[in-house]
């Protein structure tokens, strides 16, 4: 029994933590559903007023040491807790199902609060969100569309480089404002920690969206994300295993033209431009492609009038004689298929939990592998997690919670992934092979096979190691007063080693070409090491009391100190020989080819905070919070800034006039106001004049050559000292309504909110005679409005339990003041005063020129003085744009706002049911109102003939016989192409989409059957699919979720569908 041996190892490992107990007064019992009588495994049984407790086993049974007269409290998620006095040695406890747990608590800043009396806009997500999703490399991935008010997005789908980000209730600042991350009560200074955490360790996530965040002061303007990790449960040792295997299937991706499409298009484009087949190199190339499909013509030696092997002359005028090519390959291959394939990913988690009435523990081990869609090269993300948490009760009153976690996140990508000649550059024209005949790396002129760059160009490895050490002590000093302190230490180490290898290139026949790219002198190996040690300590007192039976008061007050120490160094060796072994000592160049650099910094925060919660009878709720934050980033004289918030609530259903009605179970009106700070764009030492010391690091450095070598230079940094800048202060208003209706079947909430960043940091421009960059100043104003809502219906028909729900988020922003900057350019405008952020401006498409008369008229009317690039040689078949303001000129003032690149609407809906052992759930997620404009020459057909061409225009371009085509006539002339394809209502794309985010079908094996194994207590198997299908309006094949700008970087990585088979085991 191999499995048993494995378990034994864990037991031994944990031996020191487990204390046995066998004392008298043992009560046994069983917990079951009050209605169905089905046993409830995993229910918690506690002796009231103590920390003694246990959980029910797979059959719903428990044992606990209790004396007569003590009270047992039984609880289980989804059921109302019940208190039963111990009256004998055996009790049967029946739990009533409850769609809402009245005592459900929500983690808020520095404490927890009953959900029922919450007045802030807080959304809580539980552990279920991360289950059944296959390999989840970042918890945000599983939350897309799940958190009302939050828009979650990624910049890529490449493993380890997804760039997940979350924006709560729209933009907060032009300087960025990421939500503050707090894990188990300790602030985490870097949201990248989410890439390393094991989602399986997360018990819950709370999102503080409004003034409630003010308790976190200067860093809370973007909202706060509180993560609580899972903790141990006392009782019998329970071992769980969750594993899944996923296949990554290429989803939305651009498709390239086939050889034939390309050749025909090229000929057409050149002929449209007026070139004659007789003497045009490119038309000739197109004809050769059609004639020699599937063949190779070798032995070409450009330039100078030479002949193809069959005697066909190569016409003069080869566009770039500097790059001789040695063959022509005309294969009928699919560029995307050459580069991409389906991939796999997997994740495994082990959990062991147990303990005694004094001490509980949980150990979890996690591993995830996220594989590549790239056919060649090393490209993957490995994550390893160990987390150990321990709860120890010194007494009834003093408890210590400990967490130790090690998260390792390793990402490997091909070094030459990006850049103009990178793997995701614009690639070859069709017909080129991935490799030469003998498997070596193929190049055509200065175009290098992306497959070769991926396979042989070296690896870029990033190893991130994050430790979390967190001790939390809670002391119930009196019945009303408690003390809580947290000490945390988070050291993070990121090491990177990157090798860029020089590659020898070949023609198709395998003949070596003169070029090595990168050249051996440019090829390099570099290593860097970053350590970031973060310490934090906080302590607070909580006083809780009820006066006159109705007045419930909770007061919290405390202080916090945080410090961050950062250190980085890196070293690089250039001049690598071919096939160099990675190593800093393996460069073959002289001393100047070795370089190093380093940087160290630190900062600290010091804060006091307080909160008052008051409610009258649980009916009228009031909360106020204040925080005074000090930071080392400002001069001592002006270091502390206060932030505060106040919120109120009215539980309408508690009112006497609501008694007797049966529609509403709960109805709560909430309102809040708060201020919070944003620290985006605040440097560590802005208040000091720093100097920059510069030394030449290579022969291409600009340092002067004085004496015998490059001279070191010293001078002031380009930005002036800033003594008066401070945190941006964002005011938040929120109005919300929570309700539960129809016997708790229908629950929901609606919120509207507004954020005003009234002192946004902006670059202020002074006369150039200042001679330096002026520091940012708090002079801008950004207003963001948002609305969100969610609705869930839970019900049961016979044996079938089901739920159906959805949520929607809407936000819009407006730059009220931006130093008067109103210059509008065609394309994406990050900031324009009076407009939303990231507005896309373009011209209004006014139809196509269909005949000579239209052409003449258009040119006559608009050609003079236009600034929209109307080419003198405009043709029939090209676009016309509209003179929107009717001044007879086509220029910048005719630009219209075509929407914003930021999604304005995010929504999702879900449905699920359980029947006997089966469970099924599905989530659909979508985005509405987003405008995409790709400012990318690769998106213009045949603008650069030697690039591969996206096929989205094939058959859709204007010809005399296809006058209704969507796109203008093909051209190879850049002035015509740039004119036709500039930002306009024709070229922007609608970024709306709706996608099937997740479908799960699970089956829990009958316990009678499974328990025969004597080892396994519970077994569930499931099949799930992520991103299975998408409805969108994108024309160029890319995924609608991808960013607008895909210019030759890994953002071109195709998105994928994930199909997962998984198992959940409990031992």
């Amino acid at each position, binding site marked *: 029994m191999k499995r048993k041996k494995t378990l034994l190892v864990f037991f031994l490992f944990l031996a020191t933590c487990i204390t046995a107990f066998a004392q008298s007064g043992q009560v046994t019992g069983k917990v079951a559903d009050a209605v169905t009588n089905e046993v409830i495994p995993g229910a918690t049984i506690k002796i009231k007023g103590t920390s003694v407790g246990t959980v029910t086993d797979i059959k719903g049974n428990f044992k606990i040491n209790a004396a007569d007269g003590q009270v047992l409290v039984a609880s289980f998620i989804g059921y109302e807790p019940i208190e039963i006095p111990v009256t004998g040695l055996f009790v049967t406890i029946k739990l009533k199902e409850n769609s809402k747990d009245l005592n459900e608590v929500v983690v808020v800043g520095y404490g927890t609060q009953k959900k029922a009396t919450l007045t802030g806009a807080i959304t809580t997500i539980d552990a279920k969100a991360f289950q059944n999703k296959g390999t989840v490399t970042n918890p945000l991935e599983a939350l897309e569309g799940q958190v009302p008010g939050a828009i979650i997005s990624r910049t890529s789908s490449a493993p380890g480089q997804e760039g997940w980000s979350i924006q709560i209730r729209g933009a907060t600042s032009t300087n960025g404002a990421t939500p503050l991350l707090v894990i188990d009560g300790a602030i985490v200074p870097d949201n990248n920690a989410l890439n390393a955490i094991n989602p399986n360790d997360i018990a819950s996530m709370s999102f503080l969206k409004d003034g409630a965040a003010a308790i976190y002061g200067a860093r809370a303007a973007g909202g706060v994300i509180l993560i609580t990790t899972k903790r141990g449960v006392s009782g019998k040792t329970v071992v769980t295993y969750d594993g899944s295997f996923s296949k990554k299937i290429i989803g939305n991706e651009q498709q390239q033209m086939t050889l034939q499409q390309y050749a025909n298009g090229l000929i057409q484009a050149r002929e449209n431009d007026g070139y004659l087949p007789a003497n045009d190199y490119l038309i000739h190339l197109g004809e050769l492609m059609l004639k020699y499909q599937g063949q190779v013509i070798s032995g070409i030696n450009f330039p100078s009038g030479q002949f193809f092997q069959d005697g066909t002359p190569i016409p003069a005028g080869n566009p770039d004689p500097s790059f001789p090519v040695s063959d022509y390959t005309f294969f009928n291959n699919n560029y995307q298929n050459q580069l991409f394939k389906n991939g796999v990913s997997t994740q495994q988690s082990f959990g062991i939990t147990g303990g005694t009435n004094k001490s509980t523990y949980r150990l979890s081990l996690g591993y995830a592998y996220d594989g590549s869609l790239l056919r060649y090269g090393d490209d993957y993300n490995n994550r390893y997690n160990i987390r150990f948490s321990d709860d120890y009760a*010194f007494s009834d009153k003093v408890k210590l919670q400990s967490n130790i976690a090690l998260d390792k996140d390793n990402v490997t990508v091909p070094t030459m992934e990006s850049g103009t000649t990178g793997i995701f550059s614009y690639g070859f024209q069709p017909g080129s092979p991935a490799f030469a005949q003998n498997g070596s790396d193929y190049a055509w002129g200065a175009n290098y096979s992306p497959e070769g760059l991926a396979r042989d160009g070296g690896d870029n490895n990033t190893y991130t190691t994050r430790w979390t050490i967190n001790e939390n002590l809670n002391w119930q000093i009196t019945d009303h007063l408690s003390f809580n302190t947290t000490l945390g230490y988070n050291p993070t180490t990121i090491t990177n080693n990157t090798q860029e290898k020089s590659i020898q290139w070949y023609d198709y026949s395998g003949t070596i070409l003169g070029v090595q790219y990168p050249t051996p002198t440019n090829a390099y190996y570099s290593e860097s090491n970053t350590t970031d040690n973060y310490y934090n300590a906080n302590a607070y007192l909580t006083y809780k009391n009820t006066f006159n039976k109705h007045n419930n008061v909770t007061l919290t007050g405390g202080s916090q100190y945080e410090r961050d120490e950062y250190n980085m160094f890196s070293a690089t060796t250039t001049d690598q020989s071919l096939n160099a072994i990675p190593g800093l000592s393996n460069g073959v160049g002289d001393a100047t080819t070795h370089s190093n650099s380093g940087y160290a910094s630190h900062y*600290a925060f010091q804060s006091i905070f307080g909160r008052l919660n008051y409610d009258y009878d649980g009916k009228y709720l009031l909360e106020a919070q204040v925080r005074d934050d000090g930071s080392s980033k400002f001069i001592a004289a002006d270091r502390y800034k206060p932030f505060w918030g106040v919120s109120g609530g009215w539980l309408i259903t508690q009112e006497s006039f609501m008694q007797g009605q049966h529609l509403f179970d709960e109805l709560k009106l909430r309102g809040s106001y708060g201020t919070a700070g944003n620290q985006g764009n605040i440097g560590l*030492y802005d208040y000091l*004049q720093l100097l920059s010391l510069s030394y030449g690091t290579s022969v291409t450095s600009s340092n002067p050559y*004085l004496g015998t070598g490059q001279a070191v230079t*010293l*001078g*002031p940094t380009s930005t002036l000292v800033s003594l008066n800048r401070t945190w941006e202060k964002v005011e938040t208003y929120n109005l919300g309504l929570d309700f539960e209706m129809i016997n708790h079947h229908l629950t929901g909430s609606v919120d509207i909110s507004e954020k005003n960043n009234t002192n946004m940091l902006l670059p202020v421009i002074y006369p150039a*005679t200042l001679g330096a960059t002026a520091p940012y100043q708090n002079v801008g104003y950004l207003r963001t409005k948002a609305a969100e809502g969610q609705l869930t219906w839970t019900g049961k028909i016979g044996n079938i339990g089901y739920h159906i729900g959805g949520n929607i988020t809407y936000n819009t922003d407006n730059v009220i003041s931006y130093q008067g900057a109103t210059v509008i350019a065609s394309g994406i405008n990050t900031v324009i005063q009076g407009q939303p952020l990231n507005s896309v401006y373009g011209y209004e498409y006014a139809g196509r020129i269909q005949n000579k008369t239209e052409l003449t008229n258009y040119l006559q009317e608009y050609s003079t003085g236009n600034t929209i690039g109307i080419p003198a040689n405009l043709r029939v078949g090209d676009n016309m744009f509209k003179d929107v303001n009717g001044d007879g000129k086509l220029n910048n003032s005719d630009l219209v706002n075509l929407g914003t690149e930021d999604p304005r609407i995010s929504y999702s809906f879900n449905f699920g049911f359980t029947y006997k052992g089966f469970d099924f759930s599905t989530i659909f997620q979508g985005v509405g109102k987003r405008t995409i404009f790709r400012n990318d020459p690769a998106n213009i057909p045949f603008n650069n003939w030697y690039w591969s061409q996206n096929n989205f225009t094939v058959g859709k371009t204007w010809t005399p016989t296809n006058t209704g085509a969507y796109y203008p006539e093909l051209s190879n002339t850049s002035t015509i192409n740039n004119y036709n394809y500039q930002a306009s209502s024709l070229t922007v794309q609608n970024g709306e989409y709706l996608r099937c985010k997740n479908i799960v079908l699970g089956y829990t094996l009958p316990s009678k059957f499974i328990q025969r194994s004597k080892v396994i207590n519970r077994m569930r198997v499931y099949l799930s699919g992520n991103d299975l299908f998408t409805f969108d309006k994108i024309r160029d094949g890319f995924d609608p979720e991808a960013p607008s700008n895909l210019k030759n970087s890994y953002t071109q990585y195709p998105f994928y569908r994930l199909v997962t088979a998984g198992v959940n085991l409990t031992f």
Partner: protein
Amino acid sequence: MKNFKYSPNKTVNTILCLTGLLLITFGCKKALNLNPISELTDAAEWQTPNDFKLGANAFYTYERTFKNAWFDYPTDPSNQEPHSDCRSDLMVVIGNLNPFSNGKNTVPQTDATYSGDYSHIHNINFMLNKAASYSNPASIKQYVAEAKFFRAYTYFDLLQVYGGVPLITTTLTTTSPELYLPQNTRDQIADFIISDLNAAIPDLPLQSNIAATDLGRVSQGAAQGFLSRVALYEGTWQEFRGNTARATQLLTIAQAAANSVITSAQYSLFEPAALGDSAQKYMFILENQKSNPANIVKASNNEYILANRYDQTVRQINLNVSHVAFANAFSPTRKFANLYLCADGLPITQSPLFQGYVKMNSEFINRDNRMKYTFMPAGGNYWSNAKYRIDWNGDAADLAHAAYLNFQPTFNNGYQNQKWASERNVPDDQEGYDYPVIRYAEILLNYAEATFELNGSINDADLDKSLNPVRLRANPTMPKLSNAFVAANGLDMRTEIRRERTIELYLEGFRIDDLKRWKTAETEMPMNLTGIQWAGTQFQTTWPGAGSLPKDATGSIIMESGRTWAQKDYLLPFPVQQLQLNPKLAQNSGW
């Protein structure tokens, strides 16, 4: 663990300690006093002379280099080269006509020349401010002098481009009233430049006293030479605008400054016998690698008074100089070609030696030798950095590797340039020849011109001391320029002095500024930019493609016509943004 016993007192004590600790940390305000740990702060530096030396080192990056002399990206406001020959009448950029050259430039929103210069001035003032409070001024006087030299150097750039500009002599803050003052006058700026240079000169070392470890630093001669450039510029500017008294004052300074460089005997023209009449050509591409037939190295070049220094193994030019300079997209104009004298010292219009234009290479015969080393006459063999000289013998191996054998210049405007193109084996961007910021030949020509303009004449002794050595270096057999030669041939002394300057300093960023100070731009600049004479010459058969290009009356191909030069063009406009930011800054007239 089973038997763990805790003491409540112990726990309480622990908690009290923790609470105390936290209260102490919060109470201690110094916990937030964190100074930089790896960055240098102003307060900690400027303690030793070496700090000031490093500070002065930064200013050497302000020196002009190849890009400034003959690159220009007129449409990119951050990439402007206002002194480039691309903006003059000597060069035409094929397919990219220059709006600053043809008078079509408009008032820009922003201008990197303006803001860049003031950023340099800020950095210089910053160091001078630190130096003012340094305890031992004598130990840093050389670096202070260098700072003043570069401040003068930067203000001269502003003066040439914009005329009068705001004079900023201290470091400003965002609340400084100086930000909102009107510009100073042209005279104030010129006087300030001269006073900075005069202050710097005594504290700078003689060239011969500069140690090998300090090569490249500003010498006394560099400051004197630069003073002659500034004073000649401003002196002639004033002279041709009718301000005789001011002109006399400045030209006197110019002549004296040039003379002190000459009499210091620290510099000499580069003319090693082994290179013969090609010395000037190889000086421009001189490297310590085998960059010339005679294996001569940079140490032999005593002509560069101040050089922006490069070396393939230390600091590469990092600009595709050879590739771009060698028969590429910009071409010298026919006007420039016609400026070269014939071997008898006479202009082509007068010399019997001139062969006309019948053959593609006719006009290159019997001309000033610098012409054949600057242009690429038809039928010649040429090498570049990619197709480089093998053994410099011109033998079979050498020829087999030539970039052009029997060169047929039938592209662009028919005239091709070779100045600044390496002939040795060196990859693109890795060339390492120096850029002459100030070279002795210019000082000699400054002396000749200042003397002539000051007195209205120049005697033969002064010509032999200045202009003639420059001319004779490349043309040992050409008659000297003398008053008798001028009189005998009906020449004009001023024209000949200017001709010599234009020929000698081509592609070194002088021409457009010279035309401005001579106030001749209004006649020279509107002329068509033309290429080779096509009609009635060999080109008609060798280059049929040029048949469709427009021609002027001589049958030369017109590359650009319709050029204009207005009075406003003598100065560039201040960028719009600066006028908005400082309403007291008055736009230059006409803009």
